């Protein structure tokens, strides 16, 4: 009976996978196989800050980036995942009303995250792991301002924007990565940053971080049959 149920579940998964035109989880029940995997990771998060200084000042900042991911599975329970580099674009378009003054303030910044891994932290059986992303700082911050009336305009980031960046950027972590689909040579997954969700005290206001689902995939190196080295040897 148990095997029938298992077959039904597996069959459903396989059939569902075949309906899609991409990732086909032929071995969704399997644990990840030993090997080296390479792929990409997409990061899209929001951080939000709000202040009350005799008026509202809020910022919802989007962090969007795409970087490389390297995953090494060494055994039944062991693996490491490394995100070497995620260049990130940071955007905010905010409306600020401070004490009756009006403002439309935008920021655009560019920076990057690096990924670290503290030892063997990816469990192939659980198909999950954790790692930290570390903010490398803003390469540049471009700030523009638009119409602001009432004499309280500012050509700079608002306090809420500063808070949202400062709160968000120093360290993102830990992030929890999970594998959601497995093919023979190709795996894909998602990650979230549960440590961020919710709120906490900041001077004169409160903040919350709302996180989008982030995705990653990786291809098993052995599928390349030394192919990945070809371009380096020419």
């Amino acid at each position, binding site marked *: 009976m148990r095997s029938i149920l298992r077959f039904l579940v597996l069959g459903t998964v396989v059939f569902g996978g075949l309906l899609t035109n991409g990732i086909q989880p032929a071995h969704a029940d399997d644990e990840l196989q030993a090997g080296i995997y390479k792929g990409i990771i*997409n990061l899209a998060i929001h951080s939000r800050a709000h202040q009350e200084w005799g008026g509202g000042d809020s910022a919802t900042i*989007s962090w969007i980036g795409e970087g490389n991911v390297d995953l090494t599975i060494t055994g039944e329970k062991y693996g490491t995942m490394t995100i070497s580099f995620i260049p990130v674009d940071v955007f905010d378009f905010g409306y600020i009303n401070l004490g009756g003054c009006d403002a439309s303030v935008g920021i655009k910044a560019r920076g990057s995250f690096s990924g670290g891994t503290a030892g063997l932290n990816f469990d192939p059986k659980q198909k999950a792991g954790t790692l930290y992303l570390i903010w*490398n700082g803003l390469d540049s911050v*471009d700030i523009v301002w638009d119409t602001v009336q009432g004499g*309280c305009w500012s050509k700079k980031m608002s306090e809420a924007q500063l808070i949202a960046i400062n709160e968000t950027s120093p360290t993102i972590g830990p992030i929890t990565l999970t594998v959601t689909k497995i093919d023979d040579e*190709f795996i894909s997954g998602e990650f979230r940053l549960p440590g961020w969700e919710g709120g906490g005290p900041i001077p004169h206001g409160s903040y919350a971080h709302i996180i989008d689902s982030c*995705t990653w995939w990786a291809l098993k190196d052995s599928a*390349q049959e030394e192919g990945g080295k*070809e371009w380096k040897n020419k």
Partner: protein
Amino acid sequence: MEKQMNGIHPHFRRWLILLPVVLVMLACSFLLGPGAPTTPLPQGSTGEATQTTPLPQGSTGEATQTTSAGLDPLERLLGMRSIQFNLTALQPDGTSRSVQGEIDSTGNMHLKLHSPVSLPPDLPEKFSPTLKLPEESELYVVDGKAYQPDDQNPAWMTSPVAEDYVVVLSNLLHGPNGPGLWLDILPAGSLQSAGRETVGGFAADKYTVNGTVHGQKITGSLWYESHALVQVELHIPAALLDPTKPAAQGERKITLEAQKASVPPVILPTPPAGTGGPTAGPQPTPGAANNPPTTLSVSDRYPLPHISFFGNGLITTPGKVWVGTVNGMVDVLDAQSGQVLQSIALFDGSGGLTQQRVFDLKFDGQHVWALAASKKEDKPDTLFVIDEASGTVLRQFDASEWEGELDQKLGFSPGRIWASHQWIDTRTFEVQYDVVPWGDSYAYDGKGWMWIAGNWYVSDCNPVLSVVNADDPSQHYAAWSTDLNGDACAMPITLIGDRMWVVMSVPAGNRTYSTALWAYPADGSKMTKETHEPLVMVPSPDDQPIALIGDQDGLWMLAGNGYLYQFDPQTGALLNSLDLVGANKNTFTANIALDDHDLWVLMAKELLRIHLK
């Protein structure tokens, strides 16, 4: 209105948020490591393609042959000299991001970057749709460091925005918007020789790309010269870009095109006069003849038992230095030896990792007054009186209902301590409530007037300066009636001789402000008229100073950027500067104080002596 008159130093706002992290980091002597397993690209490495042998930066000797061994073909491209290149990633949605660069004969680079800006779907109500964010930016990479032109900062060329930008550039070439990652995951047999072609002035070996990754075909062409990738065209199916969208249509087209070129030397422009920035070091200035500059240096460093933070109290009493901390301790050091004589706990539980900030210390000749917080990290709530001789806490006042936030300081005039709206008699300890105008910083002019500086905040800091009769606070006057606002929120103020110096934000045209040092005649009775012209107005080298103090040796400013500045006390001419932090990210400047011989600088976990006499 008074409720709004609360200015908070921007450094404090930013750092307060990070304070718990800093506390843990410093307490544990732990720093977050970069954790980035990137491979640094050797500076000055020579691309074999151009057969050049550039001298390392700053070298004056014989040519040094660098090696490209161990570099992959994209790193070899970045090691080339006298080339132009263009990396473009055209996205499935039609937007593109690109890097246009040129590398001169020494390896310095000039880069133009383009990245799209898209409006988010949930724009705030009332947001002006005419607001456009810039999509272009420009960088100069000199000696590996990146500098970005900034029309708001004429001294942009003195401060790099990234320390090792060649590594960043290499990462971009190896990331999803460059060719490296996609070439890495191609299966064996994906590259086929396609003869030789001349591209960009290179006689290149061409290869076609045709490989399948997870059912999706990656196609394109590669051109090599001397093992460097000089041109690339790759087509990446959109279905590979996001695993949640396997049916996505379209492609990412990545092109990399390099060409030989005569590239003029990439050099940074000379900083405008007077904007040399902190790296310029001592800058003798005309008008400073009365105080010829001497080289500033730290004479001694004394470790502290507790951690201090921006603006924590620091004073000297005869033979002693008193240090306020972030955790409710007041450490007393021997000014001769630097040994810790005493650590005074202000609150129950002081000395741990709970924030109990000591906002300020003041000496009335017999007692040390300490303004501190135990309930909220950003607002003082208790005023302590400490016997200077024994260190015993004699009494304390509940200040939780008093106006004042992060920048709140104490003032002293003969027989009185000034705290927010209150007066406290230093002999009887009687408190008179709500008798004086509010302010952050105080300076007594010796002629019967207290000068009080503060801010009320809207979107900028809006400085206010009042003079108050020290015997009759009902006589008080605003020092100016025009609207001023800007960045200088902390508004430190100090008396030197016959001048009262104050940090000020002043209009600089085009709706911008600059920070300046103003000096008024130090006699409050002359400030009772409607208009008041400062005696001196000079630009400030830092827009958010932490502290301003003075003696006959100079006007001293402690800057949030980690620098100590010395000015001529009469003219305000910059005499000296000293970088107290340097590359050490594990510390910061917190406050300064003077005694008869030394200038004392409070850092995160140590006290520095700068011997003056």
